[in-house]
C-alpha cells in the first residue's frame, strides 16, 4: 500500500476561510520520513488552523471544510475526525493537556487503549467488562517512556506531576501508538523548564532517527535551529519562508515572522512626556487567569499617555487588566493616584474612576438582550448615579430617560455606530458595532483611566481605525490615560506612545512605539515559557 517514493506528507494548496475571512492561503508543505519541521509565525498566522486541518479536527468540517488536498503516505486522505488521523498514524500533542488528572502516567498513556484480560462476566456482558491487564500496561508504558528518552515515573498521578512531566506523558502516549508515523507538537516547550526542553529536543532527534516525522510548532526559535532540518514561517495565512534549517538563522526567521512594511505605520503620537507624573504604578502583580497567567508584572503608567501592552497569546498580557479590575484572582500592589487599590474587588476600581473595556464583549461587556441606551447608560447609572432624577430629596431615584437618550445618541453619532435607533437590542448589532457600544459604555463613565483590552479583536478594518481613533481622541481631548492591550503589534505601534511587551507573565521590556518591529519581535519571544 505504502508508496516508498512518495513523501510521507504532502499538503497541496491548502486553503481555509472562516465565515468569508481567508485565514489560510495556498499552503504547500512537504515532509519526508524522519524530517523535523519547525513551524513558526505570529499569533493568528494560521499555524494552529493548519495543524487542525491536518489532524482532522471536527471544527474544520463544521466551519465549511478546507480547500486543497493532503496526501499521507502517498495516498490522498481526508480525515473526518482526529480518530481517522490517529488510525493513519498521525499523533498530536495539543497545547492544552488532555490528561485525566487522577490517573497515573501509565493509565493516561494507555487511555482507552488498555490491554485487557477476558473473564466470565465479560463473556456475557460484553468486552467492556474485561479487566485491565496491569502488568502489560506497565510494560507498554515503560516501553513508550524509554522510546521518548526522558524518564518520568509511570506510577505517578498526573495531578502531582510538575507541568513538564505532564507534557512528556502526552508525548509518551503518542509514542505508545505502534503505527505512529508523524507527530505534531504544538508548542510543547512552552511549559517546560530549560533542562526539560533540552531533553525534549533530544527525544525529538531520536524519534526522527527512528523514522518518525515531527512537526514542531514553537515560538522559541533557537530550538528550531537546534533540532529542525526544515523551517516554515507563516504570516497572515501565507507561507513566507520555506527553507532548510542550515540556510537560515534566528534573525531571518524573526524578520520573516513580524516583518511588515514598517513605513506604513501611521503614528501620530508625540511620545511620552517623561516628566509627567505616574498615575498608576503596578508592582509584582500576579493574576490567576487561566491561559493568561501573569507571574510578575511591574509597570508604571504616566498620566496622559497611551500605553500599549503587547505580546504573544497566552503570555499574560490580557491577565494584567483583568487582574487589576478584579475579574480574576490577583495579588501584588497597584497604586492609583497615590492610593492603593484593593485587588479582587471590581467595584473599588470603578469607584476610583478606572474603566475597562473587556475583550470578552459578549460575556462581560454587553447586556445582549437590552437596548443600546441601557447598555451605554447602565454602568454610569449604577456606579456614578448619573442619569437619575431624584425625588423627595433622594429617597426615590427615577431614571432620566431623556438624558439617557441624549447621551446614547451622542455616542452613536460620535462613534458612527450603525443601528436603527438607540432602542435597538445590543445583540442585533454586528461585532464591530458591539465593540463600539462597549467603548461608548466606558466613555459614558467619563473615566480618568481606561483599560481597553483587545478593542479591535474580530472587527473589520474600517471599524478598527474608528475605534482606535476614538481612543486617541479620548486621550487627547479629555486627557484620559489609556492602556490598550492588543496582540496586533502594528496596531499598538499606530496608536500608542509606549509599548510594554509581556512575555512569560512578565514585562520583557518597554519601548517607544517608534522602535522597529524586529526589536519588539525579539522581546516577544524573549521570555516565552
Amino acid at each position, binding site marked *: 500500500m505504502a508508496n516508498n517514493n512518495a513523501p510521507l506528507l504532502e499538503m497541496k494548496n491548502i486553503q481555509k476561510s472562516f465565515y468569508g475571512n481567508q485565514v489560510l492561503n495556498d499552503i504547500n508543505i512537504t515532509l519526508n520520513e524522519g524530517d523535523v519541521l519547525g513551524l513558526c509565525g505570529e499569533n493568528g498566522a494560521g499555524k494552529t488552523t493548519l495543524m487542525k486541518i491536518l489532524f482532522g479536527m471536527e471544527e474544520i468540517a463544521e466551519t465549511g471544510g478546507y480547500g486543497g488536498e493532503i496526501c499521507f503516505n502517498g495516498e490522498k486522505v481526508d480525515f473526518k475526525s482526529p480518530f481517522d488521523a490517529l488510525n493513519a498514524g498521525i499523533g498530536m500533542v495539543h497545547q492544552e493537556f488532555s490528561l*485525566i488528572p487522577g490517573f497515573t502516567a501509565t493509565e493516561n498513556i494507555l487511555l*482507552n487503549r488498555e490491554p485487557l484480560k477476558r473473564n466470565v462476566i465479560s463473556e456475557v456482558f460484553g468486552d*467492556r*467488562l*474485561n*479487566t485491565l491487564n496491569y502488568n502489560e500496561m506497565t510494560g507498554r508504558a515503560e516501553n513508550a517512556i524509554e522510546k521518548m528518552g526522558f524518564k518520568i515515573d509511570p506510577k505517578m498521578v498526573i495531578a502531582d506531576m510538575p507541568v513538564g512531566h505532564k507534557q512528556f506523558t502526552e508525548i509518551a502516549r503518542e509514542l505508545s501508538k505502534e503505527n505512529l508515523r508523524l507527530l505534531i507538537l504544538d508548542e510543547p516547550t512552552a511549559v517546560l523548564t530549560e533542562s526539560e526542553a533540552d531533553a525534549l529536543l533530544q527525544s525529538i532527534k531520536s524519534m526522527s532517527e527512528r523514522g518518525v516525522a515531527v512537526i514542531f510548532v514553537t515560538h522559541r526559535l533557537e530550538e528550531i535551529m537546534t533540532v529542525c532540518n526544515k523551517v516554515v514561517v507563516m504570516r497572515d495565512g501565507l507561507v513566507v519562508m520555506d527553507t532548510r534549517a542550515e540556510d537560515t538563522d534566528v534573525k531571518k526567521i524573526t524578520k520573516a515572522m513580524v516583518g511588515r512594511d514598517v513605513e506604513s505605520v501611521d503614528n501620530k503620537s508625540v511620545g511620552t512626556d517623561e516628566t509627567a507624573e505616574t498615575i498608576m504604578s503596578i508592582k509584582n502583580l500576579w493574576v*490567576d487567569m487561566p491561559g493568561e497567567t501573569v507571574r510578575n508584572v511591574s509597570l508604571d503608567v504616566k498620566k496622559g499617555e497611551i500605553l500599549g501592552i503587547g505580546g504573544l497569546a497566552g503570555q499574560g498580557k490580557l491577565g494584567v487588566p483583568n487582574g487589576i479590575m478584579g475579574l480574576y484572582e490577583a*495579588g501584588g500592589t497597584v497604586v492609583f493616584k497615590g492610593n492603593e487599590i484593593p485587588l479582587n474587588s471590581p467595584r473599588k476600581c470603578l469607584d476610583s474612576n478606572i474603566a475597562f473595556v473587556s475583550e470578552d464583549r459578549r460575556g462581560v461587556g454587553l447586556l445582549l438582550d437590552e437596548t443600546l441606551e441601557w447598555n451605554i447608560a447602565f454602568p454610569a447609572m449604577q456606579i456614578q448615579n448619573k442619569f437619575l432624577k431624584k425625588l423627595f430629596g433622594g429617597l426615590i431615584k427615577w431614571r432620566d430617560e431623556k438624558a439617557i437618550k441624549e447621551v446614547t445618541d451622542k455616542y452613536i453619532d460620535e462613534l458612527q455606530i450603525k443601528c436603527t435607533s438607540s432602542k435597538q437590542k445590543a445583540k442585533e448589532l454586528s461585532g464591530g458595532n458591539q465593540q463600539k457600544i462597549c467603548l461608548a459604555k466606558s466613555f459614558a463613565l467619563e473615566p480618568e483611566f481606561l483599560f481597553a483590552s483587545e478593542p479591535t479583536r474580530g472587527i473589520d478594518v474600517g471599524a478598527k481605525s474608528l475605534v482606535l481613533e476614538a481612543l486617541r481622541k479620548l486621550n487627547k481631548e479629555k486627557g484620559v490615560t489609556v492602556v490598550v492591550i492588543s496582540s496586533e503589534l502594528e496596531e499598538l505601534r499606530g496608536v500608542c506612545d509606549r509599548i510594554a511587551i509581556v512575555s512569560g507573565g512578565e514585562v520583557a521590556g518597554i519601548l517607544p512605539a517608534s522602535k522597529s518591529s524586529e526589536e519588539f519581535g525579539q522581546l516577544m519571544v524573549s521570555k516565552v515559557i
Partner: protein
Amino acid sequence: MKNIIEFLKKNIVPIMFIIICSICVPISGFSVTYMINEVMTRLTRNAFLILSLLIPIMAGMGLNFGMTLGAMAGEIAIVLVSDWQIWGIPAIVLACIFSIPISILLGLFCGKMLNMAKSREMVTSYIISFFMNGIYMLLMLYAMGPIIPIKHTSIKLPRGYGIRNTVSMLNNRQCIDNALAFSVGGVKIPVLTLLIIAAMCLFIIWFRKTKLGQDMRAVGQDMEVARSAGIDVEKTRIIAMVISTVMAGFGMVLYVQNLSSFSTYSSHSNVGMFAIAALLVGGASVDKASIGNVFLGVILFHTLFIVAPTVGTKITGDSMVGEYFRVFISYAVITIALIMYEIKKRQQKSNAGKLLAEAQNKEEQ
C-alpha cells in the same frame, strides 16, 4: 502538626459526627449490647443501598438521587412476589430478578435525562425522582388490580384496586438475615446478609479494574479528555446510571426483607435521602466516595438516628421533639456536607493563586 490540621480539615464532617455521637450516646443511656445490635441491624439493612451510590460518583455524576427509582423497582417487584405468595429466600431472589428489567428501564431513562443536564446531575436526579414518584403512584394506586392482577386482600385496598399503605412481608421476615445467623454476646450476626454486602464490595472493587470502570473514572474526572480519547461518554454515563439503579433495586429488596414491611407510597424517597445523608456523614463528597465512607457513614449516621429521639426526649421532656430532631439532623448533614465540599473546591482554586505569589517571592530572594 500541619498534617494533623490537614487531616482534620479533610474529615471535618465525620469528625463532627463522632463528637456529636460521643455526647449523645451516654445521655441516651442505652446499653452497649443494645447499641451494637441496633447498629448491626441498620448496617445490614442500609449498606447495600448506599453501596449502589458509589458507581455514579465514580462516573462523575454526583450523588444520585435517582437511586429512588431503583428503590421503586424493588418495591414493585416485592408487591408482585408477595401477591404470588412466594415465601422465604426464593421470594427475595425472585424479587431481585424481577426488579432488574424495571430498574434497567428507569436507569436508562434517568441516564438519558442526566446526559442532557451535565454538571447539574444532583438536582436533576432529585426532580426526576419526584416525577417518577408520580408515575409510580399511578401504577400502585390504579394499575395494580385492573391491569396487573393482584389477588390478595392483604395487599390490595378494600376498594378492589390499588395497593395498601403498608405492604407486609411477614412470611419473608428477615429470611436472609436469619440464614446462617448466630449470636455473639447478645448481638445477632446476620451472616448471609453480611456475605451479600461483602460480595457487593468485592464487585465494586473488581468493577474499578474493568475497562468499563476505568472508562467511568476517566469520564468522571474529565469528560472532554475522555471523549477525545475515544470513550463514548454518554453511553458510559448511562451504563453507570443503570448499574446504580439495578443495585438500588436489590438494596431495596434487602432493606424490606429486614423491616418485613414497607410503606408503599413513601419509603423509597426516605431511603434515598437517608442513604445519601449516611454517605456524606461517612466523609464522601460529590466527586469522591469509597467503600470505607459507606460503612463509617452508616455506623455514625444510624448511631445518631437511634439515640436522637431518646436524647431529645430526655433533654426536653417531649417525645415529638426527638422525632423532629432526627429528621432535622439528616437534612442538616446533607446541607453541611455539600457546603463543605463547595468550600473545599473554592480553596483549591485559590491555591493556584497562592502558588503564583509564592513563586514570585522565591524569585525575589
